[in-house]
């Protein structure tokens, strides 16, 4: 547990709203994490649509499938750049989903 300083005006406002400060803080954090997850899910969906595979399939076939790699260059001449952003997107999703699960667990 970490103690943080909150301006009295916010504590007063939350009290009149009937919200405990820690519950308000929790709700705000959950809302922000969900927005981040939605943003990353949308990015992931764009790549899945562009390459017509999931990231796991993309990653596997890059390494194993010569024809797939040759086709990639036709779809996107800079596909390695996409693979960098896609990997970050998938890694971010895993990280933020983990944080959300951790916050929401009883």
């Amino acid at each position: 547990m970490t103690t943080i300083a909150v301006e009295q005006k916010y504590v007063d406002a939350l009290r009149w709203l009937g919200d405990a400060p820690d519950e308000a803080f929790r709700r705000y954090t959950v809302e922000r994490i969900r927005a981040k997850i939605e943003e990353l899910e949308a990015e992931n969906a764009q790549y899945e649509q562009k390459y017509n595979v999931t990231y796991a399939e993309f990653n596997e076939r890059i390494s194993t499938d010569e024809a797939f790699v040759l086709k990639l260059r036709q779809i996107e001449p800079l596909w390695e750049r996409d693979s960098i952003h896609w990997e970050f997107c998938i890694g971010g999703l895993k990280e933020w989903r983990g944080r959300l699960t951790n916050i929401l667990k009883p």
Partner: protein
Amino acid sequence: MAWPPDEHFEALIQKAIDFLQNVRIARHTVYREYAILELQGNWGNYRIIISEVHRGDKTVKYSYYLLDQDNGLVIGFDNSADNLVLRLRYGSNWMSHLHEELPHQHTPDGDIRLTEWMDFDGFIAWVENNL
């Protein structure tokens, strides 16, 4: 590579500002296990796009592209675990090295060559020596 790569990213941004024109940071985010930086800029009439993702295990995947005025690829350097590169490096034994990330360069005509690890300094040296 150090983790988190904050100092590396700051140095990369500064080098880009010093060497390129119209530098734009397209993406710069650091999470607990992944960090990404994408820089775009111009070198004369050429466009440069640099992307790096750093992982918590201190490994890095990168791509450095040089594009012409029509956004056509002039040359790209990256270390993706590309099947064509695995075959080039290991021949018939490529299946024993799946997902191994190997630095290489490629051109629009399909020519692929193995290279040393590429970083900003190496990339700029290539640009200055070859254009």
